[in-house]
C-alpha cells in the first residue's frame, strides 16, 4: 500500500498534545525537517521521548512545541549542550523526566513487547531515581522478584502515539532500512502506535525483498512515508551526508540569547515555506554536495 506523503501532511496528522518519539541521537539522524514543520504548523504541548536528547528535540523545545520531555540526558557533543532543553528545565517551563540511556531503552522495549513493567538495575542509588519518584512516581516502582524475593526497580512501558524515524532507505509502504548503529530506533518504532518514516531514498519494494534481513521497520507499523533529501540537516545521516558543522555552530550561537534565538527561528523555520526553501537558504545543492558522504568511509 502506497503511503507516500508530503512532510506537511505527515506532520498535520499529529494532534497537539501527542506523545512523539524522535530518532535523533545528539547530532546524527535527527528529524530536523520534521521539527521545523511541527513548529511552522503551530503544533503544541507535545510529549517528546528519546533515549539521548538530540538536536531535533532541542529545536522543538526552543520552538515552543514541547510540554514534557522523557529522556536520558543529552548534548550536541562537542558543539554544545541542549541549550533550549536546559533553559526549559532551569526555568521550569519544560517538564523534564530524566532517566539514563538504558532505562529509556528498556521502557521502549517493554512498550514494544506489550509487557506492563520491566525490571532494571540502573537508577538505584542515584538522584535520578529520587527525582523520578517525586515527579513521575507512577512510572517507577520497586517490586519483590517473585522468584528470589529480591527488591527490583521496575519501569512502565513507553507507548508513544507516533514514532518519527529518519532512515536512509525505505519503500513506498514504509519497509525501512537503517544503516549504522540504530540506538533506540527499533524499540521506539515498535513501541509506538504508528510510525512516520522520513527517508533519504524511497526505493521499489522489489529492492526491499532482496535483503529482507535489513528491514528494521516493517510496513505494518507505518502510517506515512516522506521522501526528503537532507531531511536531517544540519545533523548527519550515515552513508548519506555529514553533519554541517557551520550550521550547527550557528544554531548553538543563536541559542545563547533570546533575541538571537528568535532571529534563528524567524530565519530558518518561519522564514521558509517548506523544506525546499530551507535547503535553498542553507546554500542549496552547491553547498549540500560538499556534505555528501564518502562512499567508503560513510561520512
Amino acid at each position, binding site marked *: 500500500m502506497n503511503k507516500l506523503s508530503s512532510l506537511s501532511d505527515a506532520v498535520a496528522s499529529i494532534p497537539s498534545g501527542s506523545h512523539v518519539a524522535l530518532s535523533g541521537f545528539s547530532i546524527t539522524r535527527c528529524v530536523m525537517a520534521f521539527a521545523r514543520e511541527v513548529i511552522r504548523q503551530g503544533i503544541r504541548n507535545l510529549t517528546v521521548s528519546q533515549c539521548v536528547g538530540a538536536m531535533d528535540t532541542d529545536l522543538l523545545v526552543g520552538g515552543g512545541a514541547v510540554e514534557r520531555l522523557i529522556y536520558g540526558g543529552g548534548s550536541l557533543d562537542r558543539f554544545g549542550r541542549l541549550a533550549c532543553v536546559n533553559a526549559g528545565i532551569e526555568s521550569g517551563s519544560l517538564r523534564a523526566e530524566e532517566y539514563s*540511556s538504558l*532505562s529509556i531503552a528498556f521502557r521502549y522495549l517493554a512498550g514494544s513487547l506489550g509487557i506492563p513493567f520491566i525490571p532494571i538495575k540502573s537508577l538505584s*542509588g*542515584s538522584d535520578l531515581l529520587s527525582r523520578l519518584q517525586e515527579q513521575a512516581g507512577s512510572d517507577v516502582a520497586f517490586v519483590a522478584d517473585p522468584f528470589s524475593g529480591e*527488591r527490583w526497580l521496575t519501569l512502565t512501558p513507553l507507548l508513544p502515539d507516533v514514532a518519527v524515524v529518519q532512515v536512509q532507505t525505505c519503500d513506498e509502504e514504509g519497509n525501512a532500512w537503517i544503516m549504522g*548503529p540504530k540506538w533506540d530506533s527499533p524499540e521506539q518504532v515498535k513501541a509506538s502506535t504508528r510510525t512516520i518514516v522520513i527517508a533519504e531514498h524511497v526505493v521499489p519494494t522489489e529492492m526491499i525483498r532482496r535483503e529482507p534481513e535489513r528491514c528494521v521497520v516493517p510496513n505494518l507499523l507505518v502510517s506515512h512515508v516522506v521522501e526528503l533529501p537532507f531531511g536531517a540537516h544540519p545533523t*548527519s545521516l550515515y552513508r548519506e551526508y555529514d553533519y554541517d558543522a557551520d550550521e550547527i555552530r550557528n544554531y548553538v550561537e543563536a541559542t545563547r540569547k533570546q533575541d538571537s534565538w528568535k532571529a534563528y527561528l524567524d530565519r530558518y523555520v518561519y522564514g521558509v515555506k517548506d523544506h525546499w526553501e530551507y535547503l535553498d537558504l542553507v546554500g542549496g545543492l552547491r553547498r549540500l554536495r560538499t556534505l555528501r558522504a564518502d562512499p567508503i568511509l560513510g*561520512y
Partner: protein
Amino acid sequence: MEFTASELMAVAGARELKDRQVVAVGIGLPIVASFLAKKTHAPGMTILFELGVIDPEPVHTGVGLADPRIWHRAKALSSFVDILGTVLHRGRVDVGFLGGLEADQFGNLNTTLVGDPKGKFRHMVGSGGANDIASCAKTTILIMRQEERKFRETISFVTSPGFVNGGDSRQRTGLRGGPSRVITDKAIYGFHPETKKMMLISIHPGNTQQDVTSTLGFQPVIPSHVPFTEPPTAEQLHLIREVIDPERMYMG
C-alpha cells in the same frame, strides 16, 4: 621524554585494562586510553560504545559518540538494547569509563546540574549511559581533571552512583561492582576496601602530595608510602600523538 598531564591520564587509563576484557567507552580520554591499550598490551579487548558500536577502528577523530567517524570499521553496529542491555546489564562489561562535572570521596558522579537542584541551578548533560555503566559494569574507572570544585565533599546531584555513602551502602542499594580507580591530572586513587573512601595510590611526577590534596574538597585516605606514577613510554606517546589523536581532538 616530555609529556602532558592528559597524556599521562590516558596512559594510566590504558594500564588498567587487560587483554580480553570488555570495555564500555565514552568520548575523550577514555577513547584514547582504550585504543592505546588495544594497540599495545590488550589486542583481544572489546571496545563498546553505548549507541550500538562494537570494536571500531576509526581513522579520524570524532566530535562525540554520534559522529560516524568513530564507528568506522566496527565489527558490529546494533543498538542501545544490544550494548547496554545484552552486554552491560547482562553483566558482561568488565570496565566502564566515566567522567563528570563533580565527584565525591565515594566516587559518586554528577553530570546533571550545578547549583541547588531545588533552587537556582544550571542543567548540564545528564546521564546518557553513564548511570547504566556506573550501576552495571563490574568495575568503573573515573577519569577527570582535579580542578577546583570538581572533587567535593557534597555534590549537587548524584547522576551515577559510586559507593553511595561508603561502606556496604552500594551493595545495600542492590548494586555490585563500583569504581576501582580515579585518574586525575595529578594522581591516581583507589578506594579503601572498607570505608570505600578515595585512597591515594600514586602521584604524577612533578606534583607534591600538597598539590594533590589541596585541590580536593575532602581528605583522601593516604597510605604511608605513595609512589610516583610511572611515566608514559615513548611508544605510548607515539601512538597517542601520531596514531590515535593526531588532531588533538581528545587530548585537549
